[in-house]
C-alpha cells in the first residue's frame, strides 16, 4: 500500500516536471520504442545505448581520429605481451546522486568501481545481450584506489578496443551478484556522465538533469527529455510541429519533408552496419560458387537502394563499410547483369526451360528463403519481394518462410536450416570478420551460419588476428575482401546513411556514430519562449 502511494506521488511529480521542462530551455528528443531498462548492459535497443551515453562514462573513448582519448582513466599502459592494460583513474570523479542539492554522502570513482563492473560483465547470471563481446576481458585487479589492472584472456593487437565499456558504481552494486533486467539499478541508474537519470513515466518518457559534479565540461543544456514513439512518422511530425527539438533517426520516407523545412537541420551519420543476403554454402546448388555469383548479378541493388531508401546509402562489394580501413576500394560491386547471371547458371549445369531453371537431374531449382520479422518489418518485406522478382527473371523460384526473430535465430543460427536469408551485421571499429567466415565458426550458434569453409581464408584470418603490424593487417584484409567478393558467400547489399534532424533552437550539434551524444556538453539551446 505504501509502495503504491509512493508511485502515484512519484508519477505526479514527474509528469509536472516534464511539462515544466518543455516550456523552458531544455532539449526534448524523440526515439522509437519504449525502454524498459536504462543501464548500459541489460538494454538491447540502440535508443538505450544512446541514452546511456548521456549517463555513463568509460575508461577510454575513441577520439575523432580513431585514436584513444582519456575519459575516466587519465593514462594507461599496455603490457608488452598485449595481454593486459594498467589504468590510472581520474581522481575526484563524482558519482551522480538523486538529489545533488542536498547534503548527501558523496561517492567518488575508484578502482572498486572497475572491479565491480568487470565482475558483473563476466557473471554468467547477468542478463546482458551479446555478452560474448566482453569475452576477451579476463579479470580486473586493484593496484591502488586509483590504479587498476585489466587482464585479457589472450593477447590482442589492440587491447584498448575492449576497454570502452561503461563503468558501474561499486557503492550501489558492490553486493550484487549479477546484473538483472528486473534489478533496481537498471531502472534507476547512477553514472558519472554529464546527465543524471531523474525518472520515467507511464508513456516511456525519460527525464535527465545535468550532473552538477560532472568531471569534464558541464553541459550547456540543463535538462533533457527523451520521448518514446511507436511510429516513426508521428515522431517526425512532432519534430516538424515543434514538439521535439531533435530526432535521432529519420525514416527515409520522412527525410525529404524534413529537408524541405528551413527551420530544421539534418545531420547524417554512418549506420555502422551492412545488409546482406546470406547463402547456405553447404546446401544444394548453393555449394557452387557460380550459382552464388549468378544470384549477385541477377539483382539490381542500386534500384532497391533508390526505391526503398531514397538512395541514402552506399552499395558495397564486401563485408565492411566503405569508410573502414579494411575495405578494398579496388573491388567493385557486382553490376546488375541478368545475362551474365544466366550464363553462369548454364556453366554450372543448370538448364532454363521456359521460365524455370532445372538441375541436371531435372529437378526444379527452388530455394528456401528464411525471412526474420519484428513487427511489420516493411523494408524487409519490400526487399524480399523485389528479390523474388529478380530471381524469377533468371528462372529461380523462392519459397519464402516468414518467421519471428527468435524462431529465425534458432532455424538459421543453430540448425542452419535455410538456403537463403537476409540480415545485417552491426560492426564496431574493429572490423573483425573472423567469426563470420572462419571455418571454426561454422557450427551451431556460430556467426559463420552460411557454413563457409575456405582454408586460404582461414589462414588469412588467423594471420590478421595475430599480427601487430597494422599495414600488414590492412593488406590481409584487402585480400580477404577480394576473395570474399569472388567467393560470394553473401550478396553484399549496402551500408545505409542514417540521419538525425533538429530544429533551430539547437546549436553546436555534432554527432558521432559510435556514441551519438558524445559532444552533447557543447550543444546549446535557445529558449522556446523566445522563438
Amino acid at each position, binding site marked *: 500500500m505504501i509502495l503504491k502511494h509512493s508511485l502515484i506521488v512519484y508519477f505526479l511529480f514527474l509528469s509536472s516536471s516534464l511539462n515544466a521542462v518543455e516550456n523552458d530551455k531544455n532539449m526534448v528528443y524523440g526515439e522509437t520504442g519504449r525502454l524498459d531498462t536504462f543501464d548500459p548492459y541489460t538494454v538491447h535497443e540502440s535508443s538505450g545505448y544512446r541514452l546511456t551515453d548521456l549517463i555513463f562514462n568509460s575508461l577510454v573513448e575513441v577520439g575523432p581520429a580513431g585514436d584513444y582519448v582519456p575519459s575516466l582513466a587519465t593514462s594507461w599502459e599496455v603490457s608488452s605481451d598485449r595481454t593486459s592494460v594498467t589504468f590510472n583513474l581520474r581522481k575526484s570523479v563524482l558519482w551522480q546522486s538523486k538529489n545533488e542539492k542536498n547534503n548527501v554522502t558523496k561517492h567518488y570513482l575508484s578502482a572498486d568501481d572497475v572491479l565491480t563492473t568487470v565482475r558483473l560483465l563476466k557473471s554468467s547470471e547477468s542478463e546482458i545481450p551479446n555478452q560474448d563481446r566482453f569475452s576477451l576481458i579476463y579479470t580486473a585487479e586493484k593496484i591502488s584506489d586509483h590504479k587498476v589492472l585489466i587482464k585479457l584472456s589472450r593477447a590482442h593487437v589492440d587491447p584498448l578496443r575492449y576497454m570502452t565499456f561503461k563503468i558501474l558504481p561499486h557503492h550501489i552494486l558492490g553486493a550484487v551478484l549479477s546484473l538483472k533486467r528486473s534489478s533496481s539499478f537498471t531502472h534507476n541508474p547512477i553514472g558519472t556522465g554529464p546527465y543524471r537519470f531523474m525518472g520515467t513515466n507511464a508513456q516511456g518518457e525519460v527525464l535527465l538533469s545535468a550532473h552538477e559534479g560532472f568531471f569534464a565540461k558541464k553541459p550547456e543544456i540543463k535538462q533533457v527529455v527523451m520521448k518514446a514513439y511507436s511510429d516513426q512518422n508521428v515522431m517526425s*511530425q512532432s519534430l516538424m510541429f515543434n514538439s521535439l527539438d531533435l530526432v535521432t533517426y529519420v525514416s527515409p520516407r520522412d527525410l525529404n519533408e524534413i529537408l*524541405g*523545412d528551413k527551420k530544421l537541420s539534418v545531420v547524417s551519420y554512418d549506420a555502422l552496419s551492412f545488409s546482406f543476403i546470406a547463402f547456405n554454402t553447404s546446401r544444394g546448388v548453393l555449394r557452387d560458387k557460380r550459382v552464388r555469383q549468378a544470384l549477385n548479378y541477377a539483382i539490381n541493388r542500386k534500384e532497391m537502394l533508390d526505391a526503398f531508401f531514397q538512395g541514402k546509402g552506399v552499395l558495397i562489394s564486401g563485408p565492411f563499410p566503405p569508410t573502414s580501413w579494411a575495405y578494398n576500394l579496388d573491388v567493385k560491386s557486382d553490376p546488375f547483369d541478368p545475362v551474365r547471371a544466366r550464363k553462369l547458371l548454364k556453366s554450372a549445369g543448370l538448364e532454363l526451360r521456359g521460365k524455370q531453371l532445372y538441375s541436371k537431374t531435372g529437378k526444379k531449382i527452388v530455394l528456401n528463403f528464411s525471412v526474420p520479422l519484428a513487427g511489420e518489418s516493411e523494408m524487409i518485406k519490400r526487399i524480399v519481394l523485389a528479390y523474388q522478382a529478380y530471381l524469377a527473371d533468371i528462372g529461380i523460384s523462392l519459397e519464402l518462410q*516468414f518467421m519471428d526473430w527468435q524462431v529465425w535465430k534458432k532455424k538459421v543460427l543453430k540448425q542452419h536450416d535455410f538456403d537463403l536469408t537476409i540480415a545485417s551485421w552491426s560492426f564496431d571499429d574493429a572490423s573483425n570478420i573472423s567469426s563470420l567466415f572462419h571455418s571454426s565458426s561454422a557450427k551451431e550458434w556460430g556467426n559463420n551460419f552460411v557454413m563457409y569453409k575456405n582454408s586460404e581464408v582461414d589462414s588469412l584470418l588467423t594471420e590478421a588476428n595475430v599480427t601487430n603490424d597494422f599495414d600488414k593487417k590492412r593488406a590481409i584484409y584487402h585480400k580477404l575482401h577480394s576473395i570474399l567478393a569472388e567467393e560470394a558467400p553473401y550478396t553484399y547489399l549496402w551500408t545505409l546513411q542514417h540521419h538525425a534532424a533538429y530544429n533551430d533552437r539547437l546549436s553546436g550539434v555534432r554527432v558521432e556514430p559510435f556514441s551519438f551524444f558524445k559532444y552533447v556538453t557543447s550543444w546549446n539551446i535557445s529558449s522556446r519562449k523566445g522563438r
Partner: protein
Amino acid sequence: MDLRLINLSFFLVLNAFLAASCTFIKDVVGYDSGVPLNTFVAKNGRYFPSFVEKFFLSTKTYYRDYPSLAEARADLKMIEVKPLTDGKAPFNEANLSWSADGAYLGYEVITPRERRILLKNLVGNYSRDLYIVPKQSHHFLEGMVSRSIFSYNAGLRWSRDSTRYAFMSNGGTGEYNIYVGAVGSQEKIVAKSNTKDGYATWSPKTNEIAFVSSRSGGGDIYSIRLNNNEIVRLSDSPSVDIFPEWFADGKKIVYSSGNSLNHDLMILSRKDNKWKKPYRFTDWKMDDLRPTISPNGKLISFYAGGVESNGSGGSKWHIYVVPYVEGKTYHRDELSLMKIADNVVVDLNTGPAWSPDSRKIFYVANEPQKFNPIYGYDLYTGRRFLLDTKTKMNRDILMSSMGIISFRAQVGAWDRVFVALTNQGLQLQNGEKTEVDVMGKIHYIHR
C-alpha cells in the same frame, strides 16, 4: 552566421515575390460550392457513369453477368484492377485521393529530392502537375545560401464540390503553408505562417479548411474560412494535435492528440458557429492514430496499438470502430471490445478506408506470406472479404464515392498507384439499409 543572415533575407525576398504573384490569379477561394455532384443513378443493367465505364472496360462484362441491380450490389465484388500509370519511371507513387464525385483524383510522385502532386480525371482529358516553386529566378544568390530547398507538395484533399483542392507545400522555399487550387485555375496560399502548416482537410458542408499548425507553439488544430480568410485556433494542448477529420455535418472534427506512446482521440464541436473546447473521445493506454469518419458521420475508425512487449522493437496495430455519441468518452473496458481488425498495416496517409455507404472498412493486413493483402470488413455481418488485387505490399487505401478502391502497391522495386472497381459505389449500394448506428449491431471481433 553570415550565411544564415543571407539565407533569411533570401526567404524574405521570395515571400515578397510569392505574395505579389498571388494577386493576379483566379480567385479560387471565393468559388461557389454549388457545382452539382455526379447525379448518376444505377438501374438494372447499368451501374456506373460513362467516365467510369470508359476507364474500366470490364464494366460491360459486369452488366452482362449481373443484369439486375440486386445481383450487382450483392456481396463485395471486385470488377477490375488496373495501374493508374504505365509504371516504368524510376520513382515511387503514393497517396491517391479522390474528389467527392469520384471523377478527379490526385496522387503524389516521389523523386529522390522532391515530392509533387499529379491531378487527373478518370476520363483522361485533364492533367495538372502541382509543384510549387518560387515564381522568380534567384540565380544571383546561387551558392550563397546554406542549403538547397526542394519543392515538397503533399496531402491533397478535395472540396465537397469536387472542383477545388487544398494541399501542403513548402513552395520550394522551406516554409510549409496551406495552398488552395481549383480545376482549371492556379494555386494560392490561404494559410501562411513561418512555422509548419499541414494536414489540410476540407469541410464537407462549409467553405472551411481545418489544418494543423505550430504557429502558436506546438501542433494545434486551426480552421480557416475561405470567404474571409479568418483563421481560428480550435485546440490548445501542450501535446501535438494531428490528423484532423471533419464529420459529415461540418460541425465536428476528430483528431489525435498526445505525446510519445499515447495519443487519444479528441472531438471538437461547434454550436451556433462557436467552437467549444475539445473533449477526450478515447481514453486508454493504446496509441490512437489517424481517425477516419464514416460518410454518414456516425462511426469513427482509427488505428490503435503500440510497441510490442517482446523486445523486438516492432509495433502492432489494430483497427477499432466506435459510434459517435455526443459528449461521451470511451474507456478501456468499452474500447477493448470494439476491434474490427487485428494486426493491420498502419497507414497514416489515409487511415482506415470507408465504403460510401458507411458499412464496410477496407484495410491492409500485416500478413507477410501474402505481402500485405487488402481486406474489406462488413461491420454488420462480421464477414471479412479478401480483395484479390494480385498486388503486393499494398498501402494508402481509399474508396471513392463510385466504389473505386485506390491504393499503392510494389511493382518490382517501385511503388505504383492502382485503382480497383468494386460494386460498393454509393450509386449501387444506396438502397441498402445503412442506418445501423447502434454499437450492439456492429460485429466486432473477439467478443
